[in-house]
Structure formats: structure tokens, C-alpha cells
């Protein structure tokens, strides 16, 4: 009896030991760094060289910078940046769903001979650098570029449009283009896992293809849709390079990430930048927790 208990304890220690290097790594290079952001946000700065002096102990925390940031976010100019960021992200997500759902659905459930080829095409963008793909777009969007030529040729636009002039549609299109591959794949794998017998049962009971989709496939794909959405929303909220790259610094398309970068790398107030990071994390907290909870639940189910 006691040896069995001791044996189990020993095994637990062994498995825990196997996980330890990874856990230690994440504590050293993820948990501590995030705490350091906290310490900078609530710390002081050197009076002459303006470098941060973090407050490591909560006793020394100074909430002045955070207070000011909150004032500016709720009822001030920074609030607009947050609203703009979330609007861009929402529009881009709608774009991802409109494009990504039909594609994922077709490849997962309808494509036949072309399936392998299509799967390869869906995975391919992962192997092409994000910035390479943005570079490709800036090539196309020049005033004398191919987008304007095609639009002119189709008579959709008489005078060439300056796509890179710093307006929001270019940024939203860029975000959709950049992130839709990350949206499609998780959704594809969720759709692919739906039990075909359920769909056939629906058909056998006389439902039309459309109503089978609406009553069976769509509801069953909701968890996959949610996961895919969370996976795309979170990185988009911290994006600051897509808009800068596509509009070369237009105040109309500034996102939260740009303000964070400015305050942390180009200003004398790093605490403000650190406070913005904390605020962004707090606003995204619900989505993050949703992802964690559902993922852990799925893991447990899979391993039972």
C-alpha cells in the first residue's frame, strides 16, 4: 500500500520534472517580464536621463501614470485610438469570416479531387513571411500598380485611386489579407471533425442542404468559429506594423500598438507606454480566459 503511494508520488515528481525546464523557462522569460512591465508602469523615471526606475515592491507603486492614461482613454483622445483599433479589428474579423468560412467549409466538407491541392494552398501562406505578403500588397497598391489597372480595365474606377494615401479601407483590407490564413485553418480542422453521420441523418429526414447546414453544420461549427476568431483578434489588437507599413504614418489609421511603441521607444515617459500595455491586456483578458478555459477543457476531453 505505502509503496504504491510512494511509487505514485515518485512518478508525479518525474513527470513534473520533465515539464520543469519549460515551466522554468516561461517563468523566467514570460512571467517575470510581464511583472517588469507592471513595475515600470507603476515606477518612477530617472530625472536626468529619463530611464525607468521600476518599482518592484507593490508598496512603492505609484499609480499616477496609469491614472492619466485611464483619464485619456475614458473620455479623451486615447479612447478614440482604442475605438479605432477595435473597429479595425471588428471589420477585419467580419472580412475573415465572410471569406474564411466558405473556404474552410468547402475544403473541409465539399471539395473532392481538389482537396489535397486546396489544403496545400491554405497552408502555403504560413510559409510566406507576413511582411513579404504586405510588401506584395504595397507593390500592387501603388498609383500605377496593378490594382488600379485592373479596376480601370473593369471600368469600376475611372481615375486611379491613391490606395496608399492613408485611409482606413487599405488598412482593413491589409489586416484581412494578413490574418485570414490564421483564421481559416483552425476553422477548417473544426469543420472537418464534424461527424458526417449527423449531416446525413439530417438529409435523410428530408431537410434541404441549406437547412441541414443552418441546423446542424453551423451550430456544430460554432466552437471552431469562436476559437478561430479569438486566434485572429488577439494578435490584430496588438498590430502596429500593418497600418504603418500600408499608410506610412497616417494619423487616421493609428492603432493602440503605435501609441505603445511611441511611449516606450520614443518618449520620456515609458511608464505611460507600460500602462497602455497593461490596459490592453486587461481589455483582452476576457478573450484570453475564454481561450484558456475551452482549450484546457478540450485537452482533458481528448486525454480521458
Amino acid at each position, binding site marked *: 500500500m505505502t509503496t504504491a503511494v510512494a511509487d505514485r508520488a515518485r512518478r508525479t515528481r518525474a513527470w513534473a520534472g520533465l515539464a520543469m*525546464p519549460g*515551466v522554468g523557462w*516561461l517563468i523566467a522569460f514570460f512571467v517575470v517580464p510581464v511583472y517588469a512591465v507592471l513595475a515600470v508602469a507603476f515606477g518612477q523615471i530617472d530625472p536626468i536621463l529619463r530611464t525607468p526606475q521600476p518599482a518592484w515592491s507593490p508598496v512603492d507603486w505609484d499609480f499616477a501614470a496609469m491614472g492619466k492614461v485611464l483619464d485619456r482613454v475614458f473620455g479623451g483622445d486615447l479612447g478614440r485610438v482604442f475605438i479605432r483599433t477595435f473597429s479595425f479589428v471588428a471589420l477585419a474579423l467580419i472580412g475573415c469570416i465572410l471569406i474564411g468560412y466558405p473556404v474552410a467549409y468547402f475544403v473541409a466538407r465539399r471539395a473532392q479531387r481538389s482537396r489535397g491541392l486546396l489544403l496545400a494552398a491554405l497552408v502555403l501562406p504560413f510559409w510566406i513571411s507576413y511582411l513579404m505578403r504586405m510588401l506584395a500588397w504595397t507593390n500592387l497598391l501603388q498609383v500605377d500598380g496593378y490594382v488600379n489597372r485592373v479596376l480601370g480595365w473593369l471600368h469600376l474606377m475611372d481615375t486611379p485611386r491613391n490606395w496608399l494615401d492613408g485611409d482606413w479601407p487599405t488598412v482593413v483590407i491589409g489586416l484581412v489579407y494578413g490574418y485570414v490564413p490564421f483564421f481559416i485553418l483552425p476553422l477548417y*480542422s473544426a469543420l472537418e471533425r464534424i461527424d458526417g453521420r449527423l449531416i446525413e441523418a439530417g438529409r435523410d429526414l428530408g431537410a434541404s442542404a441549406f437547412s441541414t447546414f443552418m441546423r446542424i453544420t453551423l451550430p456544430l461549427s460554432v466552437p471552431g468559429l469562436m476559437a478561430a476568431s479569438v486566434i485572429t483578434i488577439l494578435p490584430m489588437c496588438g498590430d502596429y506594423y500593418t497600418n504603418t507599413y500600408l499608410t506610412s504614418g497616417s494619423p487616421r489609421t493609428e492603432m493602440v500598438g503605435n501609441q505603445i511603441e511611441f511611449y516606450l521607444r520614443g518618449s520620456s515617459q515609458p511608464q505611460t507606454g507600460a500602462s497602455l*500595455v497593461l490596459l490592453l*491586456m486587461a481589455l483582452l483578458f476576457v478573450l484570453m480566459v475564454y481561450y484558456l478555459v475551452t482549450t484546457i477543457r478540450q485537452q482533458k476531453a481528448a486525454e480521458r
Partner: protein
Amino acid sequence: MSRQRGTHGRAPWLALVTWLYVLWSLLPVLIAVRISFNSGKSRSTFQPMSLRWYSGDATSSVWHDDALHLAMFNTLKLAGLCMLIATPVGVAMAIGLQRWRGKLSNGANGLMLIPIVTPEIVFGVALFVVFTQVYTGVPGGLTTQLLGHVTFTLSFVVVIIRARLAAIGDQYEEAARDLGASRLQAMRLVLLPLLGPAIFASLMVVFATSVDDFVISSFLSTGASTETVPIKIYSGARAGSTPALNALATVMLVFTLVAVALAGLVMRRMRHHGDGAASLTGLGT
């Protein structure tokens, strides 16, 4: 790969949308590749073909511009080292987390997942702050970038491996144990070979993620000697740029695709089954 498939009726519209999407997602890249062969400086239109931006131009071609090959070399070195560190640590962590049933295991599990859902800018800022404030002894540049990339990619490895572990179950190891293998032997001789395809998938995902990373590399870059290809492309849009940038991106693209194709061949040799595209991205579960 495919158990059942809805075969009721054809879906011409869906097919059209899908193929249009494929065209839309890949055509711009093909055009960018074509522009890299321009003989002139235009980055918007096709010009007569030449290798000027690869090797012809004596100062600013990929072959002759030191800054460009340095960026390429840095990117590959970073990605290679990152693979070598993140994969073993991640595999061990996945096996450990899957079997460790202690009070703390849930916490460790959650901790492992958080990096996946953390916006990269948070990562970049946090690492930047910690390396300038706390770990000041760590040499800046490549070392800090590497530590950052490993942290960022570790969780992907764990997720991919765990998905595979769940699929394998523990009956194979049990069988080996029944036949007299020690726990360690069972793991080494049975489990690890079974994990082969997933380990390959992890290596590739880590490689692709590291090669692609801009935010962390940029926050932790200490200058020209630590610039990577994405940093070059990003700052190239701001500084005067030529199709040499397209050429650089094209070389990297070819490099990555060849690496992926080779890895794919090896995987096929190992007769894998069950791992779809989802595990390739690590986001499927």
C-alpha cells in the same frame, strides 16, 4: 485524413469562392516575386527580366549588399537555434504536462497556453523591459532575440505534441512495459518514434514562426548587426527601396519552401497518419 465528407450535391459557388480566395492569397506574392526580377527600380510594374537585384547590381543586389545577406544569415541562424532549443524543451514539457497530475499541473498548463493568446507587442515590450532592467547581464542582440523567440514558440510545440500524445494514447507504451521495458526505455523506443511526425511538425512551425517574427526581433534588436529579414523589409518600406527587397524576400521564400518540402518528404517516409493541417499550425485544438 478523411472519414466522411458531405457529398450531397455540388457547390459551384463555394468552389468559385474558394479558388478566388486561393488566387487572391497567392497571386500578390507571385507578382512580388516577378518584380524581384525587374531590370529597373520600379516596385509597382513589370520591367524586362534581369538578375540585377539578385547579383547584377554591384552595390545593392542581394549578393553584393552585405547588410542584406547579414539579415538573411541572422534570420536563419535565429530560426535554426530556436528550433534546436524550443523543440526538445517543448516535447519534454508536453509529455510531462500530459501525465503530471498534481495540484500545480493545472497552473502549469494554463501558463503554457497564455503566450499563444498574448499579442506580440506585449511580448516585445515585456522582453525589452526585462532585458534592459533585470537581466542586464545577458548580451543584447542575437542572444536576447533567441531567448524571446524560444519563449514565443515553446507553447506551439507543446500544443502540437500534446494533440499527438492524445491521439496515440498509452496502450503502446503499456505493451512495451508488459514486455519488460523500463519506463525510460518505453519512452525512448516506443513513444518518441511515434511522436516523430509531430516533432517534425513542431520543428517546422517553430522555424516558420521565428523566420516570420518582426515585433520581438525588432524590440530586441541592437543595431545593424542584429537585423533580420522582416526588419529589413519593414524599414525598407520607409527608406528608399528597390526590388532588391523583393529579391531578398524571394530568396527567403524559396529557402523556406525547400526546407518545408524536404521535411514533408521525410514525414511521408515515416508514414504518418492522422496529423492534418491543423497540427501543422498548432492552432487546431
